[in-house]
């Protein structure tokens, strides 16, 4: 095949894949607002994403906050700017680190398991069986996951914000010799609601992306165990990349003057 044709074919394939994904996403979202709903399935996903991801997200953000304080101290103490540490920790955690880290951890934990579960259901004809039992698989399988992704990630990120700031506080007070009260007052005075809100908006978007990628790749997987494996990898990789891209775009929207 000549290179121009190969390029053209590749581009068309890319467009087709994007089209399919967009149709899938719109379909999923539109079913979110149309009954019937499956409360049991929604509850199961809420617990799976919200509750069982708590340890992972908590540990990640806690240590991120701690290391942030430590590293900023090394840098800032050279020009006597240690006083900026509380605000640096608070801003970085709420605006960037907590949403992005939680998003990536959830992409690995939840995106992969969604793709594997739905992929297995697809290749063992369980999705077909749903159709024959008058149950729309989009409503039964996809909608609960999308809803849980969008609602639970902000919750996790909020907890991540608190733990990250707490981690910075612990290191600053017990290791770097900061005054407890000054640290807290500095943090409180500096942080603005917009910082937290932008982080939560990011979280909701990331949660949607992770669930969408997990569902899309799992739901469309083909060809046995190998196909399910490929779907799982694709779900995690594409969700992670999309999270980083979306993160930049949302930051641009919120903070570009």
């Amino acid at each position: 095949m000549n290179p121009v044709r190969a390029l053209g074919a590749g581009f068309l394939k890319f467009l087709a894949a994007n089209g399919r994904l967009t149709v899938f996403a719109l379909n999923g979202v539109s079913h979110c607002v149309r009954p019937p709903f499956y409360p049991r399935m929604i509850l199961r996903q809420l617990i799976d994403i919200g509750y069982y991801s708590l340890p992972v997200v908590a540990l990640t953000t806690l240590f991120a906050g701690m290391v942030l304080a430590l590293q900023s101290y090394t840098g800032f103490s050279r020009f006597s700017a240690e006083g900026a540490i509380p605000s640096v920790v608070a801003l970085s955690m709420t605006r960037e680190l907590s949403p992005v880290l939680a998003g990536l951890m959830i992409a690995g934990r939840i995106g992969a398991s969604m793709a594997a579960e739905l992929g297995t259901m697809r290749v063992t004809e369980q999705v077909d069986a749903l159709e024959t039992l008058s149950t729309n698989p989009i409503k039964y399988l996809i909608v609960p996951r999308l809803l849980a992704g969008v609602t639970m990630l902000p919750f996790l990120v909020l907890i991540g914000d608190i733990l990250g700031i707490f981690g910075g506080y612990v290191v600053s007070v017990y290791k770097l010799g900061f005054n407890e009260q000054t640290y807290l007052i500095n943090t409180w005075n500096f942080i603005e609601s917009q910082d937290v809100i932008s982080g939560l908006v990011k979280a909701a978007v990331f949660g949607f992306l992770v669930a969408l990628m997990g569902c899309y790749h799992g739901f469309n997987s083909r060809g046995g165990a190998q196909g399910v494996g490929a779907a799982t990898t694709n779900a995690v990789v594409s969700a992670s990349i999309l999270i980083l891209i979306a993160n930049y775009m949302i930051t641009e929207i919120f903070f570009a003057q």
Partner: protein
Amino acid sequence: MTNTPAPKTPKIRLKDVHKSFGDKRILQGFSLDVMPQESVVIIGGSGTGKSVMLKCILGLLEPESGEIDIDGVRLSTLSRGEREQVNAKIGMLFQNAALFDSLPVWENVAFGLIQGKKMRRGPAKEIAIEKLAQVGLTADVGALSPAELSGGMRKRVGLARAIAGDPDIIFFDEPTTGLDPIMGHVIDELIVKCVKQVGATAITITHDMASARRIADRMAMLYQGKVIWHGPVTNIDNSGNAYVEQFITGSAEGPIKMELRKL
């Protein structure tokens, strides 16, 4: 082939259905009428497209051309919602059972009742246990997860799920494969009961000729994407069709050539 003009509309009608995957042509002009309360058995070689045909009727696969009617209604003209209503009348046993492995066995059987018919879980569970008993499984099997079952048990749970909603139309894809001969017999009787007493219309795919003779009113043989012979089950031994004869005797000699390569 004797085909007296039918007075009633057929329950299921497939006319000139074509389905291929890529350039692999599977169904090439498949036509079949199934009358109400009739039990039709489809026979045919492995990989000839029997399961694909059932999936086309269920709308899980879309044929490239041809018409499929249920109760005289052209399926291709239906909206998604109407299609779901039609599917609600159909029970399907998948070849590999396709049980939901995140749910216990009884919930698998009761699934169509709870999710489709919006029945409460308590009464649905009772029906599920009763249907499990009909396929020879005890109530404590109901609490197990599908992964804990043997192959034959899975098949029977799939069967219980297919008949749980007392459907109008039932498709059985190899219901007795993997069962011992006695249990196979029990399942055959259950299928006959569904048709004769409950009044369902059934299409069964099977490779088991003894079972086919017990279940069928009529048999159809699928070969190279078409129905090459169909007729009452009593005619099966003198069909006058060399393909059918070879198939029911299972002889390696005859017009059907298995595509094998010499080692």
